[in-house]
């Protein structure tokens, strides 16, 4: 039976872009000009997604679980990236360069094919899905992620939650056991909710732009984060991508002077769905 179906579907299953006709492709835009590095998005993410707070000691060992994190980089005067972190504080007056970093929901996600049990795969709406129940914790995905945004439950962190605090866990999603990998889902529970609502309202293939927000977007005081459907040409996120000449299926974007859009590590051909808008430094103006 499987063989018959396979032969029927052969050419469809042999194509690379399997979901090219799907109605949704969720994407994100983060304007680094607006980001002030306050960390509200990080806090919101913790609250929304039942992300365990591991404490100082575990954090120091590298066991922290923040699905969203604010990375800080310092620039050198000539504009080159500063690799050697010891010297970073030589230019404190220049301030940090913040990059909120979360799963980029790559369309060519390197983490997906390496999972031995297919616990991670690509969903029809362009999400890089992690099936917690299926994960056996081989951690290959975490290694193969160039952004290092996959987080492994090194311990049973939820057991450490002191008594009344379990009451504030989000009932829309699970807590995760030790030994499994987890990561940003673009708040998939909210997406699911919005889709259901759209279904009820009688337009199942179309979620109104702005009718749902991710937790990080919702809490961002400067509106640096915009979330939406990239397949919907009228959505705000699509217009931003167009405006900044960032195109899917291309690993080198327009690098003209006045264009700020880029995707992190896109030269690796991972096709991330998150566009960043470069920060314009005061010295360069």
């Amino acid at each position, binding site marked *: 039976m499987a063989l018959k179906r396979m032969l029927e579907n052969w050419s469809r299953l042999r194509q690379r872009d399997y979901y090219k006709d799907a109605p949704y492709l969720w994407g994100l835009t983060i304007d680094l000009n607006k980001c002030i590095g306050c960390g509200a998005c990080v806090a919101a993410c913790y609250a929304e997604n039942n992300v365990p707070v591991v404490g100082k000691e575990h954090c120091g060992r590298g066991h922290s679980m923040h699905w969203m994190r604010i990375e800080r*980089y310092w620039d050198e005067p000539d504009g080159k990236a500063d690799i050697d972190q010891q010297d970073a504080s030589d230019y404190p007056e220049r301030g940090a360069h913040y990059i909120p970093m979360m799963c980029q929901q790559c369309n060519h996600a390197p983490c997906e094919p390496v999972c031995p049990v297919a616990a991670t795969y690509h969903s029809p709406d362009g999400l890089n899905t992690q099936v917690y129940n299926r994960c056996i914790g081989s951690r290959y995905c975490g290694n193969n992620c160039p952004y290092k945004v996959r987080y492994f439950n090194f*311990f049973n962190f939820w057991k450490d939650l002191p008594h009344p605090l379990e009451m504030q866990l989000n009932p829309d999603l699970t807590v995760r056991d030790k030994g499994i990998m987890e990561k940003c889902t673009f708040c998939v529970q909210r997406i699911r909710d919005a889709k259901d609502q759209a279904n009820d309202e009688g337009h199942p293939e179309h979620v109104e732009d702005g009718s749902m927000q991710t937790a990080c977007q919702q809490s961002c005081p400067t509106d640096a984060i915009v979330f939406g459907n990239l397949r919907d040409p009228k959505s705000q996120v699509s217009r931003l991508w167009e405006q900044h000449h960032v195109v899917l299926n291309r690993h080198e974007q327009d690098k003209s002077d006045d264009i700020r859009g880029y995707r992190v590590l896109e030269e690796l051909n991972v096709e991330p769905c998150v566009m960043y808008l470069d920060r314009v430094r005061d010295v360069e103006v």
Partner: protein
Amino acid sequence: MEHQDTMKDVAWAKINADVLRSLEKPRRIFWIVLAVCALLVLSGVVAEIYQYREGMGVALMNRPHYWQLYISNFVFWIGMSHSGTLLSAILLLTKADWRKPIYRFAEAMTLFSILTAAIYPIIHLGRVWNLYWILPYPDARTIWPNFRSPLLWDAAAITAYATSSALFLYIGMIPDLAICRDNAKGWRKKLYTALSMGWMGRAREWMAFRKTYILMACFLVPLAVSVHSIVASDFAMSIMPDWHITSFPLYFVAGALYSGCAAIITLFVMLRHIFKFEAYMTTEILDKTAKLTFAIAMAWNYLNLSEYASIWYSNDMYEKEVLLAKFFGPYAVIVWTMLLCATVAPFAMVFKKVRHSMWSMFILSLVLQLGMWLERFQIVSPPLASNHEPWTWAVVWPGAVQLIITLASFGWFTMLFLIFCKIFPSVSMYEVKEMVFHRRKASSRARLEDLSAIKEEVARAEEGLQ
């Protein structure tokens, strides 16, 4: 001594007696070593139980070091397993008869190092209890493993390899088991009778045996190469800088042969000393093994150095960063020691004196193995420490749990090997007999044809010179 090395005057009955003697009552030192090994294994089990209950965090891995000693040990043991079967099969196909006294224990080494290696992916898993999910079994919810993953290729390759090399070892041992059966009493008699399956040395048995053995060797050579290429795929298929290297499959195969050859030399010297196998494990064979090790070391060196050179040549930003971090970063000590042990040390084998001395080869083989163990560590850890994302760069050294389990694996391997040596003949009796038989025949023929053959050869060689 020279006379003995040619191995044509050993009486066949003496071969049986010598080898069977090695199965007899073990000395006290045997029990002591066995107890130490069992203790090591026990401590490893305790460490694993602790890790199982608490979570992987106790092993002191972290993000980005999702993989560490467990994986590098896995690669080390799988690599070790290659020399036995692969060399035995290659030497069989190229008709090198000096393999005969040494291949049995080398193949046993293969089997036990696979058994050791196979434990590591299990220990390594975050949720061990779901290990069976990587098996392709039909399931009501139609969930299948992911055949795209190199880890599943690993599972397939290791299954094939463990099965085939165990069978290769077993099939090759049947005539010897028959010899044991003929000489044993008590429970051993029952065991050997069952295992030897009624082998009587009939002509049809021998014919089928030889054919099967060669056919299996034809499979085992490409199989062993594929197994380590697939282990290399765990790294090469990723996009991590310094893991995504096209030469990794070949490099891993060379490295596996390299460390395996070193292990063969170590065990060679030990068995020769302990069981007094001087008549079979001759310096001639040691010399040939050492030469082979040298050739493999050179191939490994070429692949290692050409990897560095090609990164330099390509000027790739990420790769260069990782390479520099390897040489001058936090793990530099490991990398330089590795280069010293595995790149520089093998040149000692250029000298005949070194190749012919049991002591120097023993020490050298240990040095080479140390180098290769460090090589596996430096493949896994330093690239993780300086990946694409500078914000996550971190240095982590393996914690006590990892180290204890590493030690336990050495104990486990030694324990299995010791038990094997006392239950099964660690030198192939019938093949040593064959070797003696053919060498004796060849030397008697040579005496007859000596003069005429040499004369002809000289004439021929000179003919082409004018």
